[in-house]
């Protein structure tokens, strides 16, 4: 049954991606949606909600608003809230209902901008795309608005980490480990988009010598920074020991030659025997990087499986396996060795198949957060026995 999910969960929506990417940047994110839906964006999909304040709101769209096209209430509410809260900027995003009724988010943004004199940018979410699109579009829009002035590059090697949200990296210390690893390798970390960096740090991203794209949420932003500031980028998450070291070398190489590197895609081999090789399912830059790490650290090449919902992400079309639906994924998994994936995927494999949990918050929310281990710049040898 195509496009039907019987066993699996679904990935977080584009609206959650927008809320997550902009969470720490001091703006006010307003999702035009019905009352009650904010708990999805702000609690189920947002582990920072209990630790860190952020201005994530829903508009409280009512049936009457939908029928009558009551845009003015949204505009007034946003302007009133902006006056009270003084956000640095305002982002408007849409859920399925306003998309269906053709709400003109661009025009509403223009009106709010005119009344508040604040930067206002609409993000064209529809609640039906994956979080990757919402997060990617939001970061790109933010940078296009705030990060465009020419700045001098740093003298020392420096890097931006791009594409960090808890949806892919949880709050288990992975992002901090990546930052620490890069600093130990001699890089100054200019900013991390968008976890653990201030608004000011992010808008000074142009001075970095290279960008490290750690999820597909950051790829469009990295391409923009390449166009705007000629900053080359390298894609990959520094997982394992050897692959992390290799990625640091790739960053140094990119600084030297100014060229982009899709390291996580091409610095790995396709398993000679596709069947029975380990398989990884996660956001594809993360999954590809883990496959690189398994090969470099343990000499075990792995397959990367890309679920249908994540096909807009960066993956290797000649090598990676695209699963069009749950049924085809179930079929693919009968021919793989150890599966490394979110625990929800374990339901699709037989009891005899080995499984390594790799919780993915965009897929299973907080369910397995405690089991989510830091793999950045860590030794993976504890997996050798399971994988061999």
């Amino acid at each position, binding site marked *: 049954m195509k496009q039907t999910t019987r066993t699996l969960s679904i990935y977080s929506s584009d609206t959650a991606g927008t809320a997550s990417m902009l969470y720490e940047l001091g703006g006010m994110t307003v999702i035009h949606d019905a009352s009650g839906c904010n708990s999805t964006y702000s609690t189920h999909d947002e582990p920072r909600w209990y630790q860190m304040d952020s201005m994530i709101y829903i508009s409280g769209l009512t049936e009457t608003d939908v029928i009558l*096209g009551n845009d003015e209430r949204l505009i007034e509410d946003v302007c009133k809230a902006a006056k009270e809260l003084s956000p640095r900027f305002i982002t408007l995003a849409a859920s399925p209902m306003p998309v*269906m*009724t*053709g*709400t*003109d988010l*661009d*025009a509403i943004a223009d*009106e709010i901008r*005119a009344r508040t004199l604040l930067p206002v940018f609409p993000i064209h979410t529809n609640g039906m795309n994956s979080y990757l699109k919402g997060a990617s579009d939001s970061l790109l829009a933010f940078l296009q608005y705030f990060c465009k002035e020419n700045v001098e590059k740093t003298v020392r090697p420096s890097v931006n980490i791009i594409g960090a949200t808890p949806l892919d990296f949880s709050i288990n210390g992975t992002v901090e480990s990546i930052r620490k690893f890069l600093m130990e390798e001699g890089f100054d970390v200019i900013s991390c988009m968008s976890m653990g960096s201030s608004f000011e740090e992010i808008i000074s991203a142009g001075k970095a010598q290279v960008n490290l794209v750690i999820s597909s949420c950051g790829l469009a932003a990295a391409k923009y920074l390449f166009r705007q500031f000629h900053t080359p980028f390298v894609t990959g998450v520094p997982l394992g020991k050897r692959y992390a070291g290799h990625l640091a070398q790739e960053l140094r190489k990119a600084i030297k030659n100014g060229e982009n590197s899709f390291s996580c895609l091409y610095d790995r081999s396709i398993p000679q025997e596709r069947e029975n090789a380990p398989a990884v399912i996660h956001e594809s830059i993360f999954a590809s990087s883990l496959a690189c790490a398994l090969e470099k650290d343990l000499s075990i090449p792995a397959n990367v499986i890309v679920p249908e919902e994540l096909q807009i992400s960066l993956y290797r079309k000649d090598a990676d396996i695209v699963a069009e639906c749950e049924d085809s994924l179930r079929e693919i998994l009968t021919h793989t060795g150890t599966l490394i994936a979110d625990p929800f995927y374990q339901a699709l494999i037989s009891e005899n198949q080995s499984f390594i949990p790799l919780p993915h918050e965009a897929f299973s929310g907080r369910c397995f957060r405690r089991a989510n281990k830091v793999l950045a710049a860590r030794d993976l040898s504890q997996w050798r026995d399971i994988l061999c």
Partner: protein
Amino acid sequence: MLKIAFYGKGGIGKSTTVSNLAAIFAKMGLTVMQIGCDPKADSTSVHHGGKRIVTVLDLIRKYNDDFSLEDMVFRGEDNVLCVEAGGPVPGMGCAGRGIIAALEKLEQKGAYEVYKPQIVLYDVLGDVVCGGFSMPMRKGYAHEVYIVTSGEKMSIYAAGNIAMAVDLFRKRSYAELGGFILNCRDVPDEEKNVKVLAEDFHSSIAGKIGRSREIQEAERLNKCVCGAFPDSPAAKEYTLLAENILKKWGIKAKC
């Protein structure tokens, strides 16, 4: 690229007006695209000898996104590039949302970049009843809205509603009101009444098309009046309107 949207009460002669203007622009050597924004999908039929073309929503219904730009755009006998948005099954779905989906699909598939029309004419169903039907007048779409009306009371009433919508959306940088096109039905004080309406909105009558037997005869022949009866008064009136629009926007005819 000049984009113009035409609105007006149902049955008032929008498609006839738009089709004649499109044919005249094409005859002048301009690249013109006519986009029917009505689920009935009959805006462009006179450019194809009365035959209907496949609509964008038909294609979406059948192929999802697996079709090309060329599947959506049909060149008429008079060289007009024709597109019909189409609509849902009558009585079901959402026609307004259909217009949005169709116009977005045209843009996604690069219609304006590939065909490079110098003039795009949106022929929009009746009144601005919901967000979907305001789409052609939104920022990035039409520069100007023309409202087709007769002097009949209900037509003037509908025209006034549409003009109010255009006025309401002015602060959103939507299309400006280009003017009213008087499509005469020979009712008493017709021109006077439409002139009052136009003045109420600080606008004017941009063109006047007299009651014409030739227009009806041309429609029976599945042709534009300017093609079937090029020397008729109606053909000349449409030509004058077309020339005035080009003059206003500084567009020069090629022939």
